[in-house]
């Protein structure tokens, strides 16, 4: 087979693969531009089914009542009053998704804090019956997630995020020991917002969304018509080969 023919064949197949890639990129761009099209799983499919012990993501024991345990899986919080034999839902007023740490206060009976990786800290003073959201000590920038926390005595909280460490004292509020400077955080936010605006078309104003939709639809058309033309060409060649 001649070199030219080999290159032509490679070009054809790589082109087809690229078309599939373009389809994926275009369809995902449409989806990202219209988040309302992308709903979460249907509610019935993810209704709480109780704690699956193999799926526990965080667990803490009450220092004032060792039989009282609080645990979480990917979607909810649970408590046990008999050292983990039976579990019941512990309602939080927002979905307890991605709980990555649960901590009881060592000196205040009933006080516990849970951290949700993407949304923040929730505090309860009565063992988890009534909650309040704790204001975060930072404005989350893209990619900043809560990683872990620790409760010390006298209401002190230590919080670790991907950016650094924070420390809370009831009288003084939050102090930070972040590894990044405010300028760096601001730059990170600006860049992230710029990329987000460019990706979604918002950078071009209100018409950007429609511009991107048109481009995505054009790419989908080009990919599909390319696949069709390629298939037609192959079919014609096969027919010609058979006839000859």
């Amino acid at each position, binding site marked *: 087979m001649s070199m030219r023919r080999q290159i032509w064949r490679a070009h054809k197949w790589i082109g087809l693969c690229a078309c599939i890639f373009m389809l994926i990129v275009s369809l995902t761009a449409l*989806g*990202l531009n219209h*988040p*309302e099209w*992308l*709903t*979460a*799983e*249907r*509610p019935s499919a*993810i*209704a709480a089914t109780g704690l699956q012990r193999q799926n526990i993501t965080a667990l803490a024991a009450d220092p004032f009542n060792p039989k009282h345990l609080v645990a979480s899986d990917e*979607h909810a919080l649970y408590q046990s009053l008999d050292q983990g034999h039976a579990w019941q839902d512990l*309602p*939080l*007023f*927002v*979905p307890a*998704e991605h709980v990555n740490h649960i901590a009881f206060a060592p000196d205040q009976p009933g006080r516990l804090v849970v951290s949700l990786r*993407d*949304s923040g800290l929730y505090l309860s003073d009565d063992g988890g*019956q*009534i*909650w*309040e*959201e704790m*204001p*975060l000590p930072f*404005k*989350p920038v893209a990619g900043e997630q809560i990683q872990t926390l620790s409760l010390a005595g006298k209401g002190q909280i230590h919080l670790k995020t991907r950016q650094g460490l924070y420390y809370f004292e009831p009288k003084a509020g939050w102090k930070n020991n972040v590894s990044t*400077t*405010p*300028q760096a955080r*601001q*730059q990170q*936010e*600006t*860049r992230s*917002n*710029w*990329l*987000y605006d460019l990706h979604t078309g918002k950078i071009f104003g209100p018409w950007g969304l429609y511009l991107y939709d048109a481009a995505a639809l054009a790419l989908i058309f080009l990919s599909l018509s390319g696949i069709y033309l390629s298939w037609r060409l192959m079919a014609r060649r096969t027919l010609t080969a058979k006839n000859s």
Partner: protein
Amino acid sequence: MRKLVALSLLGWLMWGHPTPAAEPPTVYEKVYLTQAQALATVMPGLQVKSQTVALSAAKRKQIQARLHRKVPENQITLFVGQHQGKTERYALVMNEIGKYYPITFMVAVNPKGSVEQVVIMVYREKRGDAVRRGRFLNQFNHKSSQDALAVNTDIIHLTGATISSWSVAAGVKKALVLLEELVLHP
């Protein structure tokens, strides 16, 4: 050479262009509806008056137990929409923390205690403003405090606006319980 220039330009745009230094967190506040506009939207043609209702300690305890969350307010201000002296609708302005800043929205409820309409008034963050769209907000219509009103249970969140969806759902539930406990069945 052209490629080099283009790549350098892209690199500068993405990583090197000057950014403001050490500014306070930016609020991307966008007012979609003023209070008057929101009231005109949720109570069209009704005569609107505002009313303040105080929370007693016992009521607060009851409400907190139902919501599983602290209610710091000492009183609430609600709007009553009347037609020929008959109350047709109530409305409450809620402020719920989103990712960092509060989302301000209005919940309109009929005298039977079910949601008639939810409208977003002010959104203050860069991402997640898709919660203002009818496709999301219409899910709350006709729901009452007896419904779970929780994302992943009877409300479907919007991808890209997950935490805002949680906040709006929690706020609507709070509005319904407050109205029910303080006005409809005190």
